[in-house]
């Protein structure tokens, strides 16, 4: 099954809706045709599809509430998707239960945003790093090799064996993130889902962690799903970038294509809003008004139309689908069909 053209990860039409029911009386609504029991759902992810090849780094960017972290957590099966497929090396894991997930976890691991909350404060570093490995190794012989492997892993992420006996609170944020990376690497996965792995770190430490993640990719041929809100970080690390807005993918392209000629108005606004230490030149400036609408009550048609400077009546009627515009770039926007409306 490990044929080289099966993507490491393939996501098809993934949906994740969270019911926010509350109690019976909260949901009870009067009026219209008598008494109704409402079932409000947050449509966090609304039909997202993409692929990640072996050794590829795919980044998902977007603002808070766009569903990028939910996509990551659904792929890592922290959430069970409402519908859609999540294929790891061709195997659909969307409906798997806890026991069925165990062998999958040897192929896919996760790195979390907050290095202060993602390590058990009462475990020593050695036990933290060993835990996924022990979960996967049931033979006595295999378990004998674990300590040596832990030491090698810690060295790989720039910690030494002296650190193995310490507790998480004895480390700085950057070092804790290294421990998190060592833990993810312990089972030699092919895919690492990294949810904002450097957002909580200072810029000089952030550079260390990004360099480390890149080195590890080159050494082990890892694929990353890299979630970030920071465009400059994404530009540095990613091979491919998907831009999300309100639960939908609005644009997906190779990094250089996306940064050189973004097509979706939201991507363009995002790129022009990012502050830069370089002096401003003739930067295209699309300033968005307003804020992201609630995922409880999505706008009709295109989810971005309430903030889009180009929106017209078609955008309210029809939800644009991702379409290929060449250069391996796909965009979900009606402007592609009617470019004369693009007046920027």
């Amino acid at each position: 099954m490990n044929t080289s053209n099966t993507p490491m990860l393939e996501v098809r039409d993934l949906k994740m809706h969270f019911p926010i029911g509350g109690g019976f009386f909260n949901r009870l609504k009067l009026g219209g045709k008598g008494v109704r029991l409402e079932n409000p759902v947050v449509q966090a992810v609304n039909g997202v599809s993409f692929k990640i090849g072996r050794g590829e780094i795919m980044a998902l960017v977007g603002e808070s509430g766009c569903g990028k972290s939910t996509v990551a957590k659904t792929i890592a099966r922290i959430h069970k998707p409402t519908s859609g497929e999540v294929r790891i090396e061709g195997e659909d894991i969307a409906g798997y239960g806890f026991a069925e997930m165990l062998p999958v976890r040897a192929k896919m691991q996760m790195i979390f945003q907050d290095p202060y909350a993602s390590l058990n404060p009462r475990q020593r570093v050695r036990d933290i790093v060993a835990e996924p490995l022990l979960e996967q190794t049931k033979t006595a012989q295999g378990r004998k090799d674990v300590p040596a492997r832990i030491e090698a892993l810690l060295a790989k992420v720039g910690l030494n064996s002296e650190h193995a006996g310490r507790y998480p609170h004895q480390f700085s944020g950057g070092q804790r993130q290294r421990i998190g990376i060592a833990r993810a690497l312990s089972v030699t996965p092919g895919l690492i889902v990294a949810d904002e792995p450097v957002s909580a770190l200072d810029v000089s430490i952030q550079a260390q962690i990004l360099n480390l993640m890149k080195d590890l990719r080159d050494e082990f041929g890892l694929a990353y799903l890299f979630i970030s809100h920071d465009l400059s970080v994404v530009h540095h690390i990613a091979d491919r970038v998907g831009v999300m807005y309100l639960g939908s993918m609005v644009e997906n392209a190779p990094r250089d294509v996306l940064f050189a000629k973004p097509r979706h108005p939201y991507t363009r606004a995002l790129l022009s809003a990012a502050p830069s230490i370089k002096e401003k030149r003739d930067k295209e400036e699309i300033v968005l008004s307003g804020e992201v609408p609630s995922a409880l009550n999505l706008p009709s048609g295109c989810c971005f139309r309430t903030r889009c400077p180009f929106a017209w009546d078609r955008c309210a009627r029809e939800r644009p689908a991702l379409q290929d515009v060449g250069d391996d770039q796909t965009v979900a926007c009606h402007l592609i069909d009617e470019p004369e409306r693009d007046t920027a």
Partner: protein
Amino acid sequence: MMTNDTQNPLLAVRDLRTYFHTFSGTVKAVNGVSFEIGEGEVMGLVGESGGGKSVVGFSVLGLIDEPGKIEGGEILLDGQDLVTAGEDRLREVRGREISMVFQDPMTSLNPLHTVGRQMDEVLRLHTKLDADARHQACVEMLESVGISQAAERLKAFPHQFSGGMRQRVVIAIALLARPRLIIADEPTTALDVTIQSQILKLMRQQIADKGASMILITHDLAVVSEMADHITVLYCGNVVERGKTRDLIETPSHPYTRGLIDSIPDTAHRHDRLMQIPGSVPDIRNLPKGCNFRDRCPRAQALCAQQEPVLTKQHATLWAACHYPLKPGETA
């Protein structure tokens, strides 16, 4: 003109020392920081966590609580020292002459009072306006920060606003009494990038309109470089470099500033690896002798371990505390 030469600065901080006396030792969070801000100027205060930048902001407003204490130095507002001023004088200053915008718009508003009441409080304390005039002033201020239907929104509670809107309210409150100096502590760090650009634009415009000065405290060099006239870089409670924004960003002379700038991924030029500053910030209770940065510095030599460098004039408008500063164009 360089800030140091400003004739009558609005705010002059000289050799400020704010220490925290904890059981595990004295934390010298701010250890001899000096800077000046003229009328209408925007100064960026930059550094990593633990650099002491927020403590400088709190010290200026006299908001240092036990176990912290201002141990020395002067904070001169129009030549009048705030360190030795009494609590009554500080109450007059806070909100009236110097106001503050905090990082987290979720926690810096009182959830139990309407936005209108929290805005009104500033005017009640600092002006002699009657209720109608105060209401009118609040409505106008809320409109000027881009909140529509302001009269209606005054009756709303903070939780009824989104993060970006709440930060607009916080900015409106900070500007209400027409302060001469605004201290903004990471004002956009909690916000999304499209909202951040809205808020930065708003702050720039409001400050220019009202002729106020600003200290912008942030870890984000990109934000500072777009907003500030000059920049002061802090490391472990000391000023390591200061100067005009473009000079400091383009040809920094301190290796730490160089390292900070080089660790930002650059969307224009992609390098395979980012420059990184090795190691991490030392334990501030237990700083090394000599230069605080020497353990992480690629240029460090024997002298750096013996003698603490002092701020000296470098090229262009820069002042740096380094024994072996970088020349323009030199890399660390």
